[in-house]
């Protein structure tokens, strides 16, 4: 059973952990990705996330179903936030419950690796010095940050 969605609202760990609760589980692993104050040595002031929401939700569900096939996990929940995030705010949460801990760790790490590989979500770093860039997009120059 997998619940996956995109939201522009702040993420709450209690909500996603509740979604993976089951009396059959002895383990739950929650990953939280947060807006970090540095990137490749450069001070970061804020992050901005954009998603192709309908496709992102479908891709996240496909990843979760793949994880449920590959590991004997009980339940999975994945949520990704969009919009502008301050440093320390959560951008993504992924939770996996299972009978034993090993598969919960492995499935959760797989979800995050795969999410970063193929879910259509984009991250713009807004630097403390006023510049900004779309992460992984090597076609752009380091452009001035028009929003800042």
């Amino acid at each position, binding site marked *: 059973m997998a619940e996956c969605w995109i939201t522009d609202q702040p993420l709450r760990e209690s909500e996603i952990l509740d979604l993976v609760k089951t009396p059959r589980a002895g383990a739950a692993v929650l990953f939280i*990705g947060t807006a970090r104050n540095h990137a490749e040595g450069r001070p970061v002031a804020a992050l901005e*996330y*954009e*998603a*192709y929401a*309908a*496709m*992102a939700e*479908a891709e996240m569900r496909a990843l979760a179903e793949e994880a449920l096939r590959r590991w004997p996990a009980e339940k999975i929940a994945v949520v*990704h936030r969009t919009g502008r995030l301050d440093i320390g705010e959560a*951008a*993504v949460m992924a939770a996996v419950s299972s009978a034993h801990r090993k598969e919960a760790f492995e499935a959760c790490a797989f979800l*995050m690796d795969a*999410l*970063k*590989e*193929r*879910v*259509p*979500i*984009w*991250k*713009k770093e807004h630097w403390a010095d006023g510049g900004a860039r*779309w*992460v*992984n*997009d*090597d*076609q*752009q120059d380091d452009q001035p940050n028009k929003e800042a």
Partner: protein
Amino acid sequence: MKIAVRFFAGCREAVQQNETELELPEGSRVADLQRELARRFPPLAGRVERVRYAVNGTYAQPGDPLNDGDEAAVIPPVAGG
């Protein structure tokens, strides 16, 4: 046939629009869409071969067919998480 095309992130900023509609000949495939995008949007010229494409919310290959009314999307390198 008409194909809706959505742009995101760096591509959206490069073309300065969120979406457009393209008229393509019947029988066009994703590779034809790619060529038409490069022609219509010069800022995409260096990008169209480096991005991925989706059709109706699923990643598509260059040889995949297009149909009237499809929603295509230009998917620059993703960076979720």
